[in-house]
């Protein structure tokens, strides 16, 4: 009897495994299959028609897709790096503050609570060419007398989206790096000062190596849901006007639901999934490395 029972950790993990297999893994396999078919929602039979890599070869030659892909990677790279930088700056500022740390920390978490849809809406409002806060302010200050078409011009819209994205997610980095700063042992810092390090050297050789795992945790968490940018973009521009802010995710939604071309949308989705997994896997690896290093040093 006893030998028949599963080990406890298997029992404990089983529900999670079953659920994820059923709700994530199985649909993904289906998605993989349908990316090899010319499946259209309007013609359900087409899901059984195998066309090999035709969808993928078509994607490979599709300029619109590659532009959207490039824009997505650019957006993510810019956003993640800037968020990291700003987050670090914010954390250092808050840590220096002599008073009101609790309040500051709470304010820091503020944007984290906003759902991406809200962020999108909020910035759509602020960047509105007619009634938006940004144009109103620029006009009142006399910097311009025109209504700047923030969400209509491709480049400006990209900047507006990037701003919204950074506003909403810098908090993640700031909070984790701040947690790292708080957890940091004082002795090495004081030793560095006594040893004659400049503040920059202290930061570079003592503080930053210690903070690295915290920054990578934030990176990892962020990379888990980079696709949240979809929500923001959908609300702000919905990829438009005329595809000028199209990213991978909005393109998928449009192809699948507006055009009902599920097959090719699934092929795109697979590219998007692999992109996300690549981002996460990189940071997870870095996280493990940074952890090991800090564990060895401290």
């Amino acid at each position, binding site marked *: 009897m006893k030998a028949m029972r599963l080990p*406890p950790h298997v*029992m*404990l*993990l089983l*529900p*999670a495994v079953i*659920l*994820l297999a059923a*709700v*994530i*893994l199985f649909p*993904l396999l289906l*998605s993989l299959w*349908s990316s090899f078919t010319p499946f259209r929602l309007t013609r359900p039979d087409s899901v059984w028609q195998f066309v090999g890599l035709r969808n993928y070869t078509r994607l490979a030659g599709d300029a619109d897709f590659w532009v959207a892909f490039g824009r997505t990677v650019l957006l993510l790279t810019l956003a993640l790096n800037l968020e990291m930088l700003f987050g670090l*700056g*914010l954390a250092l*500022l*808050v840590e*220096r*503050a002599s008073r009101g740390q609790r309040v500051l920390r*709470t304010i820091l*978490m*503020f*944007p984290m*609570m*906003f*759902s991406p*849809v*809200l962020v999108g*809406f*909020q*910035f759509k*409002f*602020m960047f509105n060419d007619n009634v938006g*806060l940004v144009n109103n302010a620029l*006009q009142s200050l006399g910097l311009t007398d025109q209504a700047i078409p923030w969400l209509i011009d491709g480049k400006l819209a990209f900047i507006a989206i990037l701003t919204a994205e950074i*506003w909403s997610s810098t908090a993640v980095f700031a909070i*984790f790096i701040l*947690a790292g700063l708080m957890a940091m042992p004082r002795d090495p810092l004081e030793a560095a000062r006594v040893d004659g390090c400049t503040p920059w050297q202290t930061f570079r050789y003592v503080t930053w190596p210690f903070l690295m795992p915290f920054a990578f*945790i934030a990176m*990892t*968490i962020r990379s888990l*849901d980079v*696709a949240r940018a979809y929500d923001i973009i*959908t*609300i702000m521009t919905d990829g438009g006007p005329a595809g000028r802010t199209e990213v991978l995710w909005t393109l*998928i939604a449009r192809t*699948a639901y507006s055009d009902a071309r*599920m097959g090719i949308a*699934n092929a795109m*989705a*697979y590219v998007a*999934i692999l992109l*996300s*997994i690549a981002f*996460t*896997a990189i940071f997870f690896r870095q996280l*493990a490395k940074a952890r090991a290093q*800090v*564990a060895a040093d401290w």
Partner: protein
Amino acid sequence: MDRNASARARKLTSRWALNLALFVAMAIICLPGFWIVLNSLRPTVEIMAKPPIWIPRELNFDAYVAMFSGVGQGGIPVLEYFRNSLIISVTSTIIALAIGMAGGYAFARYRFAYKSSWFLGFMLTRTVPGIALSLPLFFIYARLGIIDTHLGMILVYVALNVPFTIWLIDGFFRQVPRDLSEAAQIDGCTRWQAFWRVEFPLARPGIASAGIFAFLTSWNEFALASQLTRSTGSKTLPVGLLDYTAEFTIDWRGMCALAVVMIIPALLLTYAVQKHLVSGLTSGAIKG
């Protein structure tokens, strides 16, 4: 004397510069939220005024009253959406917590082969973009007849939340020394009793914050909900918000009011758990 004085002056200026930078940063963080709240209280004329009116002349709660008096502004059933959001978020959170607690405990307390690979595997399921996942789910749900239902949304939100809940709860159980469970077993507990009487009460604040995090994820989720819900019977608030933008003329005031309604529960909950959330996520950072 000179070196001391100049060093002190430099210190003072840098302190002021830092305080100024801090103030600007905090202002940027707070401004959009403040803007939304302000505009939800202003009459539409004032919002649309040219040149802009900076100091509000009139504040009222008309938008909120309109929203909650049955069918809201522009025929949008805010109350229904609110109810849907609540049912879906709460149910999926409870289930995700139960599953996540089991999984998190397994990762925190047992040693097994390929542990870190399993962990990474769980996390990777979380990275699948909602919109990509919605394609096959749309098809499957349509076949099963659970599209546009609470059940369908709950299922997918549980799956969405389980990996992260496992990560958090793993962190919280790691913070409870193993000795305590052992001491309880020596004191006469079974492993099950030791868990419920010692380990669970100690990890409870952390578990609560993991739950709140899961709740917020469901509460805020948009990509999946926008494709898998269709009717007022299951649409959630974020999708409802889109109803406003879909209209030809945007009712900025109404939208701002709805936004405030959405953000308030999230605000309160996040404030309540912020401390535990961070400690749970970083607990593994140093110990590894």
